[in-house]
């Protein structure tokens, strides 16, 4: 099977029903994407498939044929951090950090679709679980990144 992972075309030899999460982690050793629940409930495994945030623990590899997969390892482009990563550092978002790859990938997809999300938009889009309670900093960092990327709406 041919897959596009982080801009590289790869030939992978795995069962088509293997969830993308395990292909990334255990076959390609891209360990930035995390396992949390296995039932798409926590979002730790969030990556982008064709620009949309997906929970890779329940999406089979076969669904990725012909569609690019982007993981946290490729969120920065050409060595330049994504504005969300810069905002995440400025707001000192992570604590244990385990859920943060998923948070960032979900936030990146949100900002692709919504340049100036409101608190309510963020609440609806960001359903990832953080056990350390980084939520209010996630919210602040998304606003900060939105401002950096698109300027003020008003």
């Amino acid at each position, binding site marked *: 099977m041919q897959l596009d992972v982080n801009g590289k075309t790869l030939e992978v030899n795995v*069962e088509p029903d*293997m*969830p993308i*999460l*395990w292909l990334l*982690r*255990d*076959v390609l*050793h*891209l*360990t*930035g*994407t*995390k*396992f*949390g*629940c*296995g*039932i798409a*409930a*926590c979002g*730790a495994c969030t990556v982008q498939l064709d620009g949309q945030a997906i929970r890779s623990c329940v999406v089979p590899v076969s669904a990725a044929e012909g569609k690019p997969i982007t*993981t*946290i*390892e490729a*969120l*920065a482009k050409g060595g330049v*951090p994504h504005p969300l*990563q810069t905002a*995440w*550092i400025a707001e*000192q*978002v*992570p*604590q*244990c*950090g*385990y*859920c*943060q*790859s998923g948070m*960032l990938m979900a936030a990146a997809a949100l900002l692709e679709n919504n340049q100036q999300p409101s608190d309510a938009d*963020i*609440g*609806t889009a*960001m*359903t*990832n*679980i*953080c*056990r*350390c*309670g*980084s*939520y*209010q*900093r*996630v*919210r602040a960092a998304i606003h900060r990144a939105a401002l950096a990327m698109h300027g003020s709406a008003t």
Partner: protein
Amino acid sequence: MRRRTWILSALGATGALVVGWGILPPRSRLGAPETMLPTAGDVALNGWIKIAQDGSVVLAMPRSEMGQGVHTGLAMLVAEQLDAPLGLVRLEQARDDKIYGNVSMLVASLPFHPLESEGGVKPAKVRLGEWMVGKIARELGINATGGSSSLADAWDVVPVAAAAARAALLGSAAQQWQLPVAELTIQDGRVQHASGKSAHFGELVAGASHSPAKAVLKERKDWRLIGQSAPRMDVPAKVDGTARFGIDVRLPDMLFAAVRMCPMLGGTVATLDDKAALALPGVKKRVSLDAVAGSTAGFAVVAQTSWHARTAVQAVQVQWQQRKDGALDSQRIQQTLLETLKTDKGFTFYEKGDAAAAEAGAARVVEASYSAPYLAHATMEPMNCTAQFKDGKLEVWAPTQVPGFARAVAAKVAGVDVERVTLHVTYLGGGFGRRLDIDFVAQAVRVAMACDGLPVQLLWSRVEDTTHDFYRPLHVAQLRAAVDAKGQVSSLRIHSAGDAITPRWMERGLPALAGPIDTPDKTTAEGLFDLPYGFANQHMAHVATHSGVPVGFWRSVGHSHNAFFSESFVDELAFETKQDPLAFRQALLIDAPRYLAVLNLAAEKAAWGSALPAGHARGIALHESFGSIVAEVVEVSLQDGKPRVHRVVCAIDCGTVINPGLVQQQMEGAVVFGLTAALYGRIDIVDGVVQQRNFDSYPMLSLAQAPRVETWLIPSQRPPSGVGEPGVPPLAPAVANALFVLTGKRQRALPLQA
């Protein structure tokens, strides 16, 4: 029990005396340079500090980073004393040595009332107890990250180690340049002289003495880093996916294992058929897992990826068998605890005046029964561990809060001397006390022993993680207060019951020191016997039970449920005596000025008493834990019949603040953690089986429901005290107290209903 016996047993280590009474003064924790890992080009100056050739400072890091920011906090202590930028400090995992033991955590297990130590000089019995336990703790050298104690413990040794390094480097420069030490300064990690001479630490370390004559700590007024919100050192790696957690260890030819344990806690495998499972693609083998370090028996399947292993482990046909002593059942356990309260007076942790007499002479007695359920930790990173046994040597990679225990259990399972075990501590994807246990380490080693020298990563599913935790124990409490003819509360009596934690943990982690009988366990009574309020008559007793349910330390431990009992009941008393909950507490804190200051700060910042939107109400709670005092004021409404918390104002006195940003972060985290438990948290055990299995049945607070959290710090010159846990206990009672205002209904069981 006589108090002297009690002090020793408070360690949960009646057998602590077997280690003997060596002479080990506190300064010996500085350690010899050879204690540090030898690395080419680096020169160690003591057991904590090495200087690298490029002038950077290497700190031996014994504590585990699980989100609390301890790596940054300890590095700040070093950078401060050496006048080096924080970025110049690198971390290296500390080796297994007694100097890295957490002394403060064990000393904090002494069941003294905190008010006794509020004054300038601690009473003799407190000093004696702390001296004794400190001595035992230094002998044991248990390296644990827990009890919100890391900074408090490091405070006595890490700055001294860094100051000793500073003196050595200055001495070396003075000798090299033939100048008086007094004329030298350090700026930005360089030793300098007015003449223009300047050198980085790496250029001076060769001539540095390992035992400088005089190490002087910087004066508080000269601090430039402590007290600043320095950015966390671990954040960059946590935003680009490179931070390595236990689950991220990758080694050549690595195999992956999935686990299934008997769903009935304490049960076993009766029969199984693994033919179909072993025939699945990518599957290597099945390994039986006996009950070890507190785990329930089961098996693991090893395969070429976690997915293959997870699929195959479910394909094993298995008949499980209930434990010998009969099925555990949480409802039945709760009934038993309530019966126990009728017959067992328990151990009296605190007594003042005569509460029984006050009740006998009271105009009326207010009584209430409270309860709190079992809770799971639900760290985001499920339990996992990687191990490789090759050529008689064992290498283990573990996200653990207790590296020494982990290494010991690994050696025991492998049947090798502990010196043959190398243990690497990774980042922890959450700890909250769950990773003070080592069951998953023992399992990984067992599986690695069957993998012919190949490394294997053992990873639990979320279901195994939720159904095979070491749970916060279920607790019940009866509270009584006497109200006299003038309407004043004259006594408070608390009688509670629930499983002891420390003796069980000792059995699992340090079996050699587990006592033959359970001794009073402070960790389950804390938060009940140590209240700051000046009720004239008090009596607090706890009955420690042993139900058989695996129980463990859950963020803020006994305080987590006991604060709900005590601070809800104190609120009840305010309403019973027709007083404002804030004013009622203030009046009872005349002799506890630090507590009063924290309470007042939270109330002021939350504008207690000011108007709120219709349908909103405030609740307040105050609680001391891990040496720190926290007050929280919450603003709550009902949305669709469910409690909705909008805002939480926190005030904390945690002694000297090392990094205010980290304190803020921990308070925000504690609020979310506490609110999740208050609104949703319950583990039910039916026929031995934990009913909650994944985040769908054991839900977590989401971003959309997260309140706005504000944190206010009390300036203090006291030594640093706990930060990771103290924000949790006041949250549940504060919300319950607000809900009472909204609904007129007092809720005495967790989780809270609408």
